């Protein structure tokens, strides 16, 4: 089981669902949420401000929506990869969006931090697949 995951989405209900599914699927111990890119960046800023932020616990995985009012997923990816990724090298991101089309997919290729696209509802199968693909040791221990 992962220690901490982050879900960034402007829809409160979706955040609720994601939190619940993550909890009951034993995907992670803790789920933190943000409603746009700016809020998410603020969380990482807060981590960086603390001495020894690793001990405080950084999210290992993020479910990121692309279309959000405020700072959208694209802008977040641009800023995060440029300024934050060096400090959080272990973070992996899955795009969780009902509307990922071919153009989006092609544009996302330039961000290696994006490891998956979830174009459907978040459920136990989706979470197990992520665990198996990217966190083999964790699954084995779980």
């Amino acid at each position, binding site marked *: 089981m992962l220690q901490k995951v982050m879900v960034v989405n402007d*829809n409160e*209900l*979706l955040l*609720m*669902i*994601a939190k*619940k*599914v993550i909890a*009951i*699927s034993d995907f992670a111990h803790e789920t933190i949420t943000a409603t746009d890119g700016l809020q998410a960046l603020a969380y990482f800023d807060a981590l960086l401000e603390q001495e020894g932020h690793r001990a405080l616990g950084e999210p290992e995985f993020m479910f990121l929506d692309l279309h959000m009012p405020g700072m959208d997923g694209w802008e977040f990816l641009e800023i995060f990869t440029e300024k934050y990724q060096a400090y959080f090298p272990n973070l992996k991101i899955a795009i969780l969006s*009902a*509307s990922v*089309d071919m153009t989006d997919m092609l544009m996302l290729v330039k961000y290696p931090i994006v490891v998956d696209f979830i174009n*459907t*509802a*978040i*459920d*136990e199968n989706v979470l197990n697949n992520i665990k198996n693909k990217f966190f083999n040791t964790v699954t084995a221990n779980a």
Partner: protein
Amino acid sequence: MLRDKKTYDILVVEDNPGDFTILEDLLIDRLFKPVIDHAKTFKAASVFLKDLTMQYDVILLDLSLPDKNGVALVQEMLHISGNIPVIVLTGYTDVTFSIKSISLGVEDYLLKEDLSPDLLYRTIVYAIQRKKSVKELEESEKRYSDLFQFSPEPVMVYDMSSLKFLSVNKAAIEKYGYSELEFLNLTMTDIIADNTDADLITASIFRDFKLGVNIRHRKKNGELFYVAIHSSMLQLNNQPVTIVNASDISQTVEYLKAIEAYTVKLKEIAWTQSHIVRAPLSRMMGIVNVLKQIGTSNPEFNEWVIHFDNSAKELDNIILDITRKTEAVKIGD
């Protein structure tokens, strides 16, 4: 002696009774029951010819009649004879004039002193045949001219090197608004709106080419319209010319454009809406997943059912909205 079985209607215009009798005998010798009408004067002949129930095959005309002779007689006879071939009968003394009468329009001439059944028969048959061929040729020329003139589509002929118009039909005059004279002072490039590059136009016409939708022509009043061009090359007075049929396809083009725009709008609606639809739908699927895992006895169960219900209502509204927007899009907007 073989006789032609066809019945000939012949008008003999001859004032001399002796000459008429000889002619009659010669005719009967070779023709089967010919109908021979005898006019002794030009006036009498004109009365016969006015009788529209008689369709004469040939007129045999003596060159000197009591009431008319010479050039005047030939000209006036040709004027009233219409399509009936006229053969002139004359004596040795009038040979020169007889030859001249051919240039006035008679079919042939015969010297009375040389007459024989064979010669008379052959001259008549040939005259009828020749007249018929000429008439057919004239009719065929007229038919082609009519096809050009009365074509409902504008048709224009222009010189291939200068691109100057040589001939235009009525539809072209009506469509473009130029008089025939004005047209003949223009070149093909003058009516082409979108591209005045003469080389390109010539090159495009050499091939059986389908610029169609892209080419617009300009009327005299400046109005533009899309044309489909069909052209072919031919020789006119030993000059290479191009004959162009320009069909106005503006309506078709405008309609196609409207349909394309309409399709684009529908696609836009379909794309955006399908993404909007998917958001509440994927939330509903997520809730179902939660409900299955927590079970009905869980105290949170009812709360999740309410969330599900709200998402379903949201989805319903979105679909209603799509239907409304799609119906609002009209062809030609």
